[in-house]
């Protein structure tokens, strides 16, 4: 197509912004569908063992355009078998059989289309909704605070950050190197702007204490749910609040501080004494994270099978811990339908404790939005 002739194609494609809008609308619909399946996806076991770089095939039913059609599974169709002269012989299934956009991989009646989503996309979608609640930004420790420092100079920027002095200097330098140019002529290339880079400052110090029951009564399902919750919480914090500290505590009848590796890969044995881990949490808070410098968040996940004789002490230390921290979250995992434990019922009455019961995989995402969701009114119920 040369530029001086009239082109029908060019005039038709002048509507290309329209095409872009269609493409964007389609992608927006894909995203929407993905969001609706987040609960399924964040609990996908495959993700837990991911190296963080994997892309996943995600079923997205909403994208299907449903039609009134014949059932494709019941019917035989006529097709070409082989080239003439070799009648009756089965042809090798062609490698490019989906040339016509027809793919046979879907299971009958499933009505799903698969779309590739990277782990980052899922995380971005999940984490965009979450934040540390009631964060006090005046606590002076490395943590969640953020400030902007003018650290570099660029040629593009917003007008309010226009650096007049540097712009003038650049103009003078340019004119000095080309003496034939008229002086005082300001060119676009001379413009200089201050660029503000976000820096972490010593504000909004925060620490998250992860407490997990590793007693013998925690079955593989309970452990899986608790670990999933802490895995996603750790991922969320690392991405959004990279300077927030994490403390991992595991307990059965006694509590110990463990490193992250051990926390996620620990076996389980022994009985359950929840007060032990609360006491350890309190000690750590008192010795290492002074209240005037840190926002403290504590989460405890258990199956609720606390030793009956320990219940009163656990409630007492738990309540004490609650007074020291911004939020104390108590999660109880039930694999069968049963009543909440006495501990749960007691904590429900204590102001400042967020309680939640997890029954299946979908509840992990629910628990996360419960604790970290924006405008979650029931958090301190």
């Amino acid at each position: 197509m040369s530029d001086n002739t009239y082109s029908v194609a060019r005039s038709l494609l002048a509507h290309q912004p329209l095409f872009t809008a269609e493409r964007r609308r389609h992608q927006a619909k894909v995203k929407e569908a993905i969001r609706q399946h987040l609960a399924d996806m964040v609990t996908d076991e495959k993700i837990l063992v991911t190296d963080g770089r994997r892309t996943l095939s995600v079923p997205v039913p909403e994208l299907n355009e449903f039609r009134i059609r014949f059932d494709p599974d019941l019917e035989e169709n006529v097709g070409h078998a082989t080239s003439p002269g070799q009648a009756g012989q089965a042809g090798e299934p062609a490698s490019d059989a989906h040339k016509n956009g027809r793919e046979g991989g879907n299971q009958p009646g499933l009505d799903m289309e698969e779309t590739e989503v990277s782990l980052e996309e899922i995380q971005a979608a999940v984490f965009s909704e979450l934040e540390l609640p009631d964060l006090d930004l005046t606590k002076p420790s490395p943590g969640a605070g953020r400030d902007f420092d003018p650290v570099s100079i660029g040629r593009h920027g917003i007008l309010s950050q226009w650096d007049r002095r540097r712009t003038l200097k650049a103009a003078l330098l340019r004119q000095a190197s080309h003496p034939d140019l008229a002086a005082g002529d300001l060119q676009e290339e001379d413009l200089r702007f201050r660029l503000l880079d976000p820096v972490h400052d010593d504000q909004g110090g925060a620490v998250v204490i992860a407490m997990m029951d590793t007693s013998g009564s925690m079955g593989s399902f309970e452990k899986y749910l608790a670990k999933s919750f802490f895995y996603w919480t750790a991922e969320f914090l690392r991405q959004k609040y990279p300077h927030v500290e994490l403390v991992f505590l595991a307990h059965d009848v006694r509590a110990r501080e463990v490193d992250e590796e051990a926390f996620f890969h620990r076996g389980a044995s022994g009985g359950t004494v929840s007060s032990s881990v609360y006491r350890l949490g309190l000690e750590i808070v008192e010795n290492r994270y002074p209240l005037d410098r840190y926002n403290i968040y504590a989460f405890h996940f258990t199956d609720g099978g606390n030793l009956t004789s320990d219940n009163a002490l656990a409630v007492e230390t738990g309540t004490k811990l609650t007074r020291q921290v911004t939020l104390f979250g108590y999660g109880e995992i039930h694999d069968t339908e049963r009543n909440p434990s006495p501990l749960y019922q007691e904590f429900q009455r204590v102001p400042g404790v967020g309680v939640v019961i997890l029954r299946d995989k979908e509840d992990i995402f629910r628990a996360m939005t419960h604790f970290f969701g924006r405008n979650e009114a029931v958090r301190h119920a």
Partner: protein
Amino acid sequence: MLDEKTLHQLLERVWPVAESLGLHPGHVHFELVSSSAIQLLASHGGLPVRYSHWSFGKSEQRLKTAFDFRLTQIYELVINNVPAYAFIDETVSPAEALMILAHVIAHADFFRHHRAFQHLPTDMLARASLHRRQMAQFRRLYGDGAVESLIDAAHILADFSGESLSETTIGERPDDVLGFVARYAPRLQDWERDVLAMVWEEARYFWPQQLTKVANEGYATFFHTRLLRKVETTAEESWETARLNAQIVQVNPPQLNPYRLGYLLYQEAFLDGGLDAVYQARDVYDDVGLIRAYLADELMERAGLALFREREAHPEPRKAEPQDIRERLIRDLDRGGLPRLVVESSGPEGLLLRHLYDGRDLDFAQLPFALKSVAARIWNGPVTVLTLRQRVPHRVTHDGSEWVDQVV
């Protein structure tokens, strides 16, 4: 890369030969476009400018992916309009272009002569562009969501906008379900009826093309083969065109290749009564008619047609009697492979449709979603389909919130 001058020279070689054989393609506007442009032009189902809808974005993405992985290449795109617009990929070699031009001329000739295309608007490109502007206006007035959901539902019924290949008025015949609801759906506003009428008009424009895939491609293949025999070509050009032709008609089990089947059928017509018979077949037959007229048992053997279960991972051809295969083939192609649906009645109890059962079940996995969309967005009340499933009569209803499947 091909330039306009070369294209012109090629056209001067092939056009007079086409006319001498009796082709009258009328005014054709040829234009060279880039590979990506032709794929964009083709992404809207055959009309380059249409109203905006996300499903076109989806098909464009599919085409683009197929193109990026070099699974498909679109050599040409002919738009049935007066003048006919023919877009040709500029990356093809001159010899390939020679064959593509011959192919395109035959397509244009087919559109100009086949009976099913005679009543269609000659300015469809302009009309589609008008639809686009009107839909955009509706979006501004009534919101993106309202228009999009209406088009979603209208696309479901667009397959049922009348079986006739002749000119019809909207909503007159019982098999015109989309036209019927556009006229008689009780709680639609005027602009919503306008939207449905626009979708209906474009569906009617595409309907003859859906029913003449084998005929149209076969006709074009038949003539590019003939034309290239008459045009003086160098040895290299002969080699290149022969290679491209072989690519086009190659067998790719278990798929049906319309180029190959159509070519064999017109070849049969030619053996039967010369070019006159070919032109006659072009004027009157759709795919099914062409098969009924010319697909003899012996030809079926030569074409290598067999029965496949397409859903199988490695479909094996199943031996069957020629009569059997022919009947299946006709059934596959009849009505473009779509079920037959007619309006039975409508009233306070909703819209009642009857599926004219021919032994093939409807896809009950999709049906509830399809009916829901129609019931909720277009009819604003229950939509019922009477059908059979495994030869047992079923009565399925969706009222927008609930799906009921009754055996009657």
